[in-house]
Every structure is written in C-alpha cells, then in structure tokens.
C-alpha cells in the first residue's frame, strides 16, 4: 500500500464526521423528557421530592397543620381568656382621648350604683365629675395595681387635675389597701384600672363607711347602706327625680345549676311588683345551663345582686344605666300640651253648640285624634315608669366547679396550680386531637386527592428515572 496523501487523509477525516443521512428527530425525544423551562423544573422539584415519599409527606403535612392549629388554639385561648376587663364589657371606662362632653354624659348616666373603670390620666373624666350633675356624689377610687398606683401618683402631681378634683366635692381614696382589691375575685374591679363607686349621696352614711373600708366587700356594704333621707331630699331638689332604666347581667358558675335556678326565683318579692319575666333550664349535670330574666324593684337592685352573688361563683357582672329623664320630661311636656288642647277643644265645643254640623264634626274629629295621641303618650309614660321602677336582671347560670376556697398553704397553692395546669393542658391536647380527627375525616376527599397526586408524581418520577 502506498503512503496516503494529505488529500486522502482529509477525505477520510471528513468522511468520519460526515453529517448523518439518517432521519432522526432526537430533539423531539429530548422535548418529551425535559420541561421547556428550567424554571418550571425547579418549581416542580419540591413536588418530586414529596412524591418520593407520599405517606411520609402526608404525615408531615397533617402533623404540621395540627401543630399550627395547636399553637393557634393556645394563643387564642391565652389572648381571649376572660380578663377582668373583658368581664366588664359595658362598664364605663374613660380614656384620655374622650371628650368632656362624653365624660359628662357617662357620669350622668352612672348616677346611683355602678362600678366605673377610669383611666386616671383622663383629665376629661375628672373635669366631668367636677362639672357634671354628679358633683354631689361620693367617689371611692381604690387603686388596683402598681401601675395604676404610679399613674395615680402622677395624677396627684398634675396641678390642673388636682385642682379640679379638689374643687369637686368628691371623696377620693386611692391609696388604701390596693392588695385587697388586687386579690379580690373577678367580680370586683381588678384590671379595670381605677375603680370608682358612685354613691347616692355625698352625705350618706355609706360614704363614711366606704372611706373606712379596706376591702371591696366593705365597700359594697357601704354602698348598700340606706341613704340619708335629708340628703336624698336635697338630691331630689337639685336634680329632680332622675329616671334611670337599669339593667344587669350576672353570670354564675355553680356545681348545682337547678338549685341556684330555684333559689334565684325565691329571691324576688312579688309584693313589690317583682316578677320573673323569662326562665329556662337546659341540659343536665355538667352540661346544665339556666337563664332567668327577672324584674326587680330598682331600689332593691344592689341587695338583689348581693344575694345572687352568694349563690355561686360570679364569672361576670355587668350593670348599665340608661338615663331616660329627658325623654320622660319631653313626653310629659307634650302630654300636657295635648291635654291643654283637648280642654280647649272641649270648651269650644261646649260654647258653640249652635254651630253648623260639619264644623262640630270637624271639632270632634280633631278631638278624637288628640285623645288618641294622649293615650299613646300615656302608655309610653307608663312603660317608662315600669322600666324605671323595675330593673331588668338577666341571670346566666352554668355548671362548673364549686367556688374554690383560698389555699391554706403554699403547698396547697402549688398543688392547685399544678392541677389547674394539668386540666388546662389536657383540654388543649383534647382540642388538638379533636382538630386532627376533624381534619382527617372532614378533609378525607382532599387527602385522597392529595395522595393520588403524590402517587402519580412518584410513578412519573420513577418512570423518568428508569428511562
């Protein structure tokens, strides 16, 4: 064989890598096995990873959702657990931002017998007390927490407010026995900030008792003391007969719902016109609940509530007062006016006996309309009077542990705390397990669909790997 020339070499080399004459469409095959975009591939990567272990992924998902729910439940429970403030949703609470007019209106509506929550920084509140119609009232302000104490101290050093308070004939006692107030049960003012008790009269015997009082029970007793007759007369002369519609809601927890339900019915005094407006009891044992709507003599409301408090563990207590004096005064004025017109028409009818028939008929028609209005207004007035004279008390009774006595020792306190924590923890656990069961059973269709998708993805991945 002769030595190959360069041309021979070039020819062979070109031939070795000559373009294939074979018809192929390898790009189509590639397209089947590779997503068009690397981005989408990356996005699907986690799905592929999940698909590798569908059961483990589903388990992790369920546990994750359960954990999130558990944390959420605990957080919600913690945040929404009944705080003293929450137990007084309708209590009057002044804030620094409230205007003097608002504060005045609130003060006026609280004449008589309610707890007030007050932010001691609220100058408007104190100004209102000084300027409003309740300047004759006695206000006891037991401090409740160290924070409140410091606020109160600042308040004391605020000259303008101090002058306002000093100028008002009110009694303020904010430095006495705050620990008792702090330790008092939830029905008291704990957590409300400064508590105020508004007395019927500055000169009532209750005021002196209240100043000497060292506990809330004593404060209550002082508040329930009968007012001084002269002072009451002075009040009446100053303010007229103030008409306040009072409503109270008291929630009681007891181990014997039926017994408390029956006892509450015996507390009313039919001779004073008191009656049971509504009553009902449902469930048994731990699930028993009862409701009573009782109309009691407004003058006896405090005494009645005291008796109710003794029947069980008070969970919440809300007292509201709706001053309808203006409405009644207005109604009576219009009524008097209508009666005057009626009298004039009657007089006219009497003096014009010889008038034409159609004129007489017109007069009688007008008279009829006026009398209808008089009757309506009389009915409204009576309704107001009934509402004012009889306070409405809604009593909610539900089953629960008996009232706990104060622990006798630290060890007892510790065991009580541990017991309480255990029960709370078990309750949380129960809620979480219940949620998991709900999610598992309720979302069965979703889980099946998810498992289907994961199994499909897994098979697809395995097939791709095999190829």
């Amino acid at each position, binding site marked *: 064989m002769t030595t190959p020339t360069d041309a021979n070499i070039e020819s062979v080399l070109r031939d070795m890598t000559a373009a294939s004459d074979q018809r192929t469409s390898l*790009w189509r095959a590639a397209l089947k096995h590779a997503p068009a975009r690397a981005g989408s591939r990356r996005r699907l990567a986690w799905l592929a990873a999940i698909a590798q272990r569908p059961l483990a992924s589903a388990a992790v998902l369920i546990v994750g959702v359960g954990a999130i729910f558990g944390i959420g439940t605990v957080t919600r429970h913690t945040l929404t657990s009944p705080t003293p403030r929450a137990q007084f949703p309708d209590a009057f609470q002044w804030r620094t931002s409230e205007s003097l007019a608002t504060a005045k209106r609130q003060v006026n509506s609280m004449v008589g017998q309610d707890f007030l929550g007050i932010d001691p920084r609220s100058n408007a509140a104190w100004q209102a007390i000084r300027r409003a119609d309740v300047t004759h009232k006695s206000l006891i302000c037991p401090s409740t927490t160290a924070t409140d104490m410091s606020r109160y101290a600042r308040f004391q050093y605020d000259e303008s407010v101090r002058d306002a308070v000093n100028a008002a004939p009110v009694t303020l006692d904010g430095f006495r026995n705050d620990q008792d107030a702090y330790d008092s049960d939830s029905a008291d003012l704990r957590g409300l900030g400064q508590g105020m008790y508004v007395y019927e009269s500055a000169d009532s015997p209750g005021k002196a008792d209240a100043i000497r009082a060292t506990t809330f029970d004593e404060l209550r007793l002082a508040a329930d003391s009968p007012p001084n007759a002269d002072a009451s007369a002075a009040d009446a002369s100053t303010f007229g007969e103030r008409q306040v519609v009072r409503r109270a809601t008291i929630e009681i927890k007891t181990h014997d719902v039926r017994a408390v339900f029956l006892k509450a019915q015996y507390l009313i005094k039919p001779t004073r016109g008191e009656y049971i407006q509504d009553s009902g009891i449902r469930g048994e044992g731990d699930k028993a609940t009862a409701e009573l709507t009782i109309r009691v003599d407004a003058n006896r409301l405090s005494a009645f509530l005291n008796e109710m408090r003794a029947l069980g563990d008070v969970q919440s207590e809300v007292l509201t007062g709706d001053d309808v004096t203006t409405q009644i005064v207005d109604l009576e004025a219009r009524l008097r006016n209508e009666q005057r017109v009626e009298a004039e028409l009657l007089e006219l009818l009497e003096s014009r006996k010889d008038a034409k028939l159609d004129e007489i008929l017109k007069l009688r028609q007008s008279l009829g309309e006026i009398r209808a209005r008089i009757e309506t207004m009389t009915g409204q007035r009576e309704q107001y009077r009934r509402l004012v004279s009889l306070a409405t008390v809604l009593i909610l009774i539900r089953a629960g542990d008996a009232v706990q006595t104060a622990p006798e020792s630290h060890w007892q306190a510790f065991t009580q705390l541990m017991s309480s924590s255990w029960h709370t923890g078990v309750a949380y656990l129960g809620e979480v397990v219940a949620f998991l069961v709900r999610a598992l059973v309720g979302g069965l269709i979703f889980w099946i669909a998810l498992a289907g998708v994961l199994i499909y993805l897994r098979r697809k991945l395995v097939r791709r790997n095999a190829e």
Partner: protein
Amino acid sequence: MDAPSDETLLRQFADGRMSALGTLAQRYEASLLGLARGLLHKRDDLAHDAVQETWVRVIRFAHTFNGNAGVKTWLYRIAINQCRDLSSMAARHASHGDPANVIEPNANAQNAETAAIETERDETIRSAVDALDVNKREILLLCYHKGLTHNEAAAALEIPVGTLKSRLHAALNELRERLNQEAP
C-alpha cells in the same frame, strides 16, 4: 423572507415556541450526529444518546443562553462535552469487563458492510486516526468536520485559534508518521 437566525430561534424557543427548536434541529442535528459518531468511534447508539442529551441541555438551559458565543458554537460545545462524557463512561464499562461496550480502536472494522465499501487505504487511515491520542483525534475530527470553520472549532473547544492550529499541525504530523511507519 430571510430565515430566522439561530439566536432568534433559540429565543423563540425559550419564550415557549416549540417549533423553533425543530427548525434549529433541522439545521444542526445531522451534523451533530455525524460529529458524535466520529468522536465516539462510530458507536451509533452512543452518538444518538449524545445528541439527544445535547438537546435536553439546550431545552433546559435555553433561557440562560447569554449570546456571548454563537448558538452553533454553543451547540457543538455541548455535543463535544456529551461525547467526552459518554466516551469516558463507555471506557469505564469496558474496564469492568463488559466486552459488548468496549471501544476498540478499529471497531469500525467490525462493520462488515462498511468495510466492504471502504478501501484498504481508507481503513488504514481510520485505524491510524483511532490510534491517536484522544485530544489529537478530537482536534483532527473537529477541524475536518464539514460544518465547522477553524474559528468555530476553536470556540467550541474554548481554546484560541492559534492553539488549535498548532495542535492540528502536531496531530497531522503524528498521523502522517504513523501512516509512513505502516507503509511498506
């Protein structure tokens, strides 16, 4: 109307137009397959794999193509890398005693049909080329591949053109020496 450039086609494909890849494949698939067959000692199965894998990578990374080099160069570079990978993989299999995958220097001789139509001289040249060092063989095949200029071959190998030419010169010299030695 002028045919769209390679870059336009690749961009269109990256934007989701699948047919653009088909057009690109129509331009280069046969050449790539020929080159792969040469680099892989006429192993058709491996050559097909190399080209298919080249397209897979194009599909995956089309959106990352930055245009620093031409699309053609980019395609050849991917194909060459795939051939290198497959070649070394086949060599590993061969070392594990899988005689079916052993790449013999003159494996083409086994193809009876090819052997029948090729002259003895050509066969000698092929054998001499196959006996060369891998890098020199690669340089030779790329430089004489019909679809590539020297500049494009240098870009595909990521080396300067001067280096390519000197290596080509060296490879040709060695090939000639081998052929001279074999000549009687």
